[in-house]
């Protein structure tokens, strides 16, 4: 069906497309789930809508309420769009070292932004949002890192969609941020395909982002359950950028930088399958398009220049 009552109703049902030129052999194939084809252009639309609808059902969210959310960008943009459609206000707590496009999109959708210091990364944004909530208890924090509706959006949506399109799936590879995608879709796929490998690709940023004052300020999302994962890779900016560019060059897909990190992990799994001589159907998530990252310099000049430009930025 291609007709919907409103933009929000068109969420999900995204295409799964083959990557014939990046796949290493006819037996070891890569498939990309194009989550940039969601209403605001990222996979976060799924979690945002589910979290808002869950809060409405629970009576936590009344007409005219103001939402508060720590976010490095995409979740904020998704929440801002849904909130505006439904008459809520939104305040985002966002690290200052995120791309200008994200700020402009948030402001265009009517959100207010409170910036947290670059040196504290997302951890600091989470801490600031929690402090703001204590001072302003009338605000409603959906809290993507611990909200089961975030993972459920993928258990109900992303996971079943992928399995329906790729019943022979052997691997699911996605990005690790709030962990919602991997926990939700990963759990669903494990239940249906017990032998599946669920692989996390975690972006490794420049040092500034890890500038905590002590280890105990570290953060693991409440949603995270490592038993859902088979393994987890840390992918640095060089590899993420290289793969992001390969995705455009070989398959015509213009994706954000975190998708490059996911492709890097997916190709590592593909190489293992090829070496072992086992067939594989590897589904990977394209989290968003590249548009919001043009100003970072990721797509211009040499890889070295792009990597230097990304230093200190939160690129996923």
């Amino acid at each position: 069906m291609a007709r919907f009552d409103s933009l929000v109703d068109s969420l999900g049902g995204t295409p799964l497309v083959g990557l014939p030129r990046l796949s290493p052999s006819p037996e070891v194939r890569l498939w990309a789930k194009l989550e940039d084809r969601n209403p605001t252009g990222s996979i976060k639309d799924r979690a945002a809508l589910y979290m808002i609808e869950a809060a409405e059902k629970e009576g936590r969210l009344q007409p005219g309420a103001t939402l508060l959310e720590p976010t490095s960008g995409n979740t904020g943009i998704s929440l801002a769009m849904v909130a505006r459609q439904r008459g809520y206000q939104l305040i985002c707590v966002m690290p200052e070292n995120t791309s200008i496009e994200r700020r402009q999109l948030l402001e265009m959708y009517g959100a207010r932004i409170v910036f947290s210091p670059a040196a504290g990364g997302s951890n600091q944004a989470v801490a600031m949002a929690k402090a703001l909530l204590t001072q302003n208890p009338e605000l409603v924090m959906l809290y993507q890192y611990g909200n089961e509706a975030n993972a459920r959006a993928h258990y109900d949506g992303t996971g079943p969609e992928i399995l329906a399109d790729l019943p022979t799936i052997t691997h699911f590879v996605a990005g690790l941020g709030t962990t919602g995608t991997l926990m939700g879709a990963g759990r669903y796929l494990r239940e249906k395909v017990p032998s599946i490998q669920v692989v996390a690709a975690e972006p490794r940023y420049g040092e500034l982002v890890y500038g905590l004052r002590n280890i105990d300020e570290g953060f693991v999302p409440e949603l995270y359950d490592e038993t859902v994962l088979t393994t987890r890779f840390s992918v640095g900016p060089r590899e993420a950028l290289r793969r992001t560019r390969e995705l455009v060059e070989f398959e015509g897909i213009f994706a954000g930088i975190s998708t490059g990190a996911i492709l890097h992990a997916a190709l590592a799994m593909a190489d293992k399958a090829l070496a072992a001589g086992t067939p594989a159907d590897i589904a990977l998530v394209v989290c968003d398009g590249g548009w919001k990252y043009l100003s970072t310099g990721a797509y211009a000049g040499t890889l070295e220049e792009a990597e230097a430009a990304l230093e200190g930025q939160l690129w996923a």
Partner: protein
Amino acid sequence: MAIEVRIPTILRTHTGGAKTVQGSGDTLGTLIDDLDAQHSGLKGRLVTEGALHRFVNVYVNDEDVRFTGALDTAVKDGDAVTILPAVAGG
């Protein structure tokens, strides 16, 4: 050859400011023991009650050691070990 270990900013007080250090061992656990002998106090920041600290992530050749045997993960000369504090995404 030895094993190269990348140290996060927050732990460089133990390495005299060095971003990378060299160590040896057959497993991550013995590598950390060797590092601690050279850089006093490092082990206490990484390991609590015999397990990796909850907010410390260690990767051998970019793979999270919690999925490869944790402190028993095999390491060898030429491997690249990265230590990072756990941070939020999203």
